[in-house]
């Protein structure tokens, strides 16, 4: 059965259609990571294209086995995002549609309130940059701890630590936000 490694090797040997398989495999995750970070679907679309084009152009530099391909790809996505923010005259934040969220079974309803996208977006914006990156990679990009660690150049322990601190801080920010009755959507 063909695997991710096979498609990478085929692309590196000059078969561009193999890269199409890698695109299909990672497009959703990369887009979700970028839309989480930019909160703008159109910008995320453009940056997704840029990420995959750069990945294709540089795939000969990727060394199989040194780091997971996903980590390498998300590192490119992160760099594309930084370039985008640098180029932008200001960092724009577009509100996500206010949409009721998710309870996950009785325990969730019992333990906590349900948050809207806007509340979450506001809460995440209060986190440190590293915490935001970890949250975006882990929960939007669906990266494993190992992929996240490689993508950010940190140890797995550091990522677990940042993940825990980010969620705890987010919880605190959202609690304070609700205490003051704020409904931040921008």
């Amino acid at each position, binding site marked *: 059965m063909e695997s991710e490694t096979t498609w990478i090797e085929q692309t590196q040997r000059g078969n561009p259609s193999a890269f199409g398989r890698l695109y299909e495999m990672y497009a*959703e995750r990369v887009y979700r990571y970028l839309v989480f970070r930019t909160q703008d679907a159109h910008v995320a679309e453009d940056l997704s294209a840029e990420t995959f084009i750069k990945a294709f152009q540089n795939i000969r530099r990727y060394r199989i086995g040194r780091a997971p391909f996903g980590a390498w790809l998300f590192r490119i996505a992160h760099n594309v995002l930084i370039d985008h923010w640098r180029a932008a005259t200001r960092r724009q934040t577009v509100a996500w549609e206010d949409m009721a969220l998710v309870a996950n079974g009785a325990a969730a309803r019992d333990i906590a309130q349900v948050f809207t996208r806007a509340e979450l977006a506001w809460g995440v914006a209060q986190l440190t940059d590293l915490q935001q990156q970890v949250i975006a990679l882990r929960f939007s990009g669906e990266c494993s701890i190992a992929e996240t660690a490689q993508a950010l150049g940190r140890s797995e322990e550091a990522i677990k630590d940042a*993940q825990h601190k980010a969620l705890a801080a987010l919880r605190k920010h959202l609690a304070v936000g609700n205490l003051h009755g704020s409904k931040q959507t921008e």
Partner: protein
Amino acid sequence: MDTKHLLQECLDRLERGETLDQVLARYPAQREELGRLLVLATSLQRATPKMPEPAKARVRYELHGAMRAHTLGRGIAGWQTWLVRVALALVVVLALGGGTLVAAAETAPGKTFFPARAAFNETRARLATEPEAAIVLHLENAQDRVDDVRALKERGGLNEAPIFLMVGATENLMVALENNPRAANRATLERAQSLAQTERALLQDLKQTAPVERARHNADTLYQLSESWFPLLERLLAR
């Protein structure tokens, strides 16, 4: 075990398909603290929208264009170029509803069936049994798409879709020429070259003047792609 490791263990269990209730039942002492964090984590996972299929198709299209431009620059084999071209053409047709052929022939730019008309003409060209006739049909279709883009630009209703169709039609012409290099006579090749030059100039203009930002961005990508048409045409004309 400290909370950060417990948290990761719980996230792993959720990923493996356990429900939140099941996961929390394993850690009664930390149920409340872990529960709050896990609810947030699952909220975050579900808060990010999925990638819409048209967006995926558009990124795929841009990627194919860049891949082809990149690999052509490296001098890849002709059959590989052809494969990418076919993929590119397919994406155009699929992304824009190429299956709809009914009532397609008489529609104009801006009308409901405009993409279907382009696909209809493209299908006619593909079904032509004689390579020479197919090349002429591809050429006429590509010329029509250029006219469509010009008309829409003048009316101020231009977005990226007709630009994709225009370049897709010319790409199909190039595929037909590459597959049947002896089927086109000199007059047809000169018409194709003139069309390619006109289209490239139009794309150059659209990079600056297209009314929608995304259309300008796509025109830029497609302008780079169009560079690859000329070596083929010059090679055929030199024979």
